[in-house]
């Protein structure tokens, strides 16, 4: 049975990052802040391992694992990030976990508003946070409207929810903020924003039970698949390219949810792990090549998973899915130059390989 945030262990999993965030606000030293951030992320992962073995808790474990490995990057940063960055890091992880574990839709919404506040803190350390606030804020307003109207007017409410939470997940048409944030925020923060934040809205999509949801999910998913793939043709910089490939891949996930594909949660995990591995990789040797190859093959694997249900739903659906998959797989490796810096320390290489191994394990898992 799924756990709820009112049980003791899930409550601790949600509370720990927020407590750490508050504590980090009082620590002036960047070095100590980094260590506290790492310790809190590790403890959170250990705690989350004790959660029950079901879907929202799997996503929580995925979130805490990637947050833990991402926090290690701080040990080798040349410049210590500002104090607010670590607060935002922990608050964002806490908000994502709360959104994943929340049973009540309004609590999910509040968690995502907190996540937006944390995103602006992280992005603000590098550049203006006005765009996330505007696009994501507008999206969350639509999502609140959708949550309220779900029983009164299910069809329009579903559209509001999909557009609204789609903006948080970085899905077309309100995706632009996430691509910008992923390109402009400090690398670990960008990873949290573009890789982990989308999981909470995607879980909300899985819980949508209205009659109109499947067709709307497939239509909006196709839009993301095609737009994300086509956007890679204009040759964006590497971090934008990873974010745009994520838009396309999230489109596949959205289609998978709409088509009722059982393997969709697996696809979500594989996408998160592969993107995290590539974003954490700073070496331009075999590790980078393996990460690029994994992310390049993912759209084709997604197409393989979706092909049968898509053909059963409607034959024409295969065409745009195949075009999107081929576009993404063909263009992505060309946008990943050997731009890496010096050799990466073993401590930071290990999680990259571990994440890639997990992706491989998920491919062959029954």
């Amino acid at each position, binding site marked *: 049975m799924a756990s709820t945030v009112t049980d003791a262990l899930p409550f601790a999993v949600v509370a720990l990052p927020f407590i750490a965030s508050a504590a980090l606000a009082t620590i002036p030293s960047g070095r100590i802040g980094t260590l506290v951030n790492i310790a809190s992320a590790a403890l959170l992962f250990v705690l989350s391992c004790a959660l029950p073995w079901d879907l929202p808790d799997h996503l929580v474990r995925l979130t805490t694992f990637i947050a833990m490995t991402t926090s290690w990057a701080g040990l080798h940063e040349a410049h210590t990030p500002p104090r607010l960055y670590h607060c935002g890091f922990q608050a964002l992880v806490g908000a994502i976990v709360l959104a994943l574990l929340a049973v009540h839709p309004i609590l999910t919404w509040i968690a995502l*508003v907190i996540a937006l*506040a944390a995103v602006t803190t992280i992005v603000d350390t590098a550049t203006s946070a006005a765009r996330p*606030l505007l696009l994501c804020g*507008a999206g969350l*307003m639509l999502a609140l409207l959708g949550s*309220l109207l779900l029983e009164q007017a299910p069809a329009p409410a579903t559209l509001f929810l999909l557009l609204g939470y789609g903006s948080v997940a970085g899905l077309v048409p309100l995706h632009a903020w996430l691509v910008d944030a992923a390109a402009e925020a400090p690398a670990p923060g960008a990873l949290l924003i573009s890789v982990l934040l989308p999981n909470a809205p995607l879980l909300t999509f899985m819980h949508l039970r209205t009659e109109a949801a499947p067709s709307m999910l497939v239509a909006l998913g196709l839009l993301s698949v095609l737009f994300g793939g086509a956007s890679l043709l204009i040759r964006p910089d590497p971090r934008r390219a990873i974010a745009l490939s994520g838009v396309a891949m999230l489109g596949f996930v959205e289609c998978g949810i709409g088509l009722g594909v059982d393997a969709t949660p697996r696809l979500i995990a594989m996408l998160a792990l592969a993107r995290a591995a590539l974003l954490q990789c700073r070496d331009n040797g075999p590790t980078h090549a393996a990460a690029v190859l994994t992310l390049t093959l993912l759209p084709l694997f997604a197409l393989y998973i979706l092909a049968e249900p898509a053909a059963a739903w409607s034959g024409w659906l295969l065409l745009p899915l195949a075009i999107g998959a081929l576009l993404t797989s063909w263009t992505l490796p060309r946008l990943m130059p050997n731009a890496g810096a010096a050799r990466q320390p073993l401590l930071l290489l290990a999680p990259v390989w571990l994440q890639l191994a997990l992706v491989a394990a998920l491919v062959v898992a029954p």
Partner: protein
Amino acid sequence: MSTALPVLALLLSIVLVSVRRTRTALWICAAQGLCAAGTLAADGSLVAPVALLLNAAALPLALQRVLEDRLPDPSPPRLWLLAVGILIIAAVGFGRFGNGIASGVTVVLLGLLLAAQSAAPIGLLSAQNGVVLVAAAIPDLPMESTLSASVPLLPALLLAHAWLRQ
């Protein structure tokens, strides 16, 4: 009373689209917040004072201190075209769900249009008033949902951002 107030709030939204001064826009938002809180109060909701205090008083006053007096000038023909489109879509799509819901959804959509075209905090505050109208129009809505609809978290986030920028 409870049928007139949502319509009044909708009319104020239409006026808001044409306003170019921040102070005037915030007065209109405050009046709209008053209408939304009044609709909640007419239904006997305990959340009405919260909505009144936050949406009709605290937030407009706080925004007046941090926003510049002149709003960015959007392209008026395009703005009006979009506004008329939203009015038609909302009237046709939501008319059958009742006056309160149709007016509330229209106010939200016009607010978001304003946020995208001109002033984000004012637009989101107006949209929040629309959400309050929708919450008031839904029978037997749980208290926590009404409270979430009435507390302007997103406009407050924009306010905090604008304040920190200053």
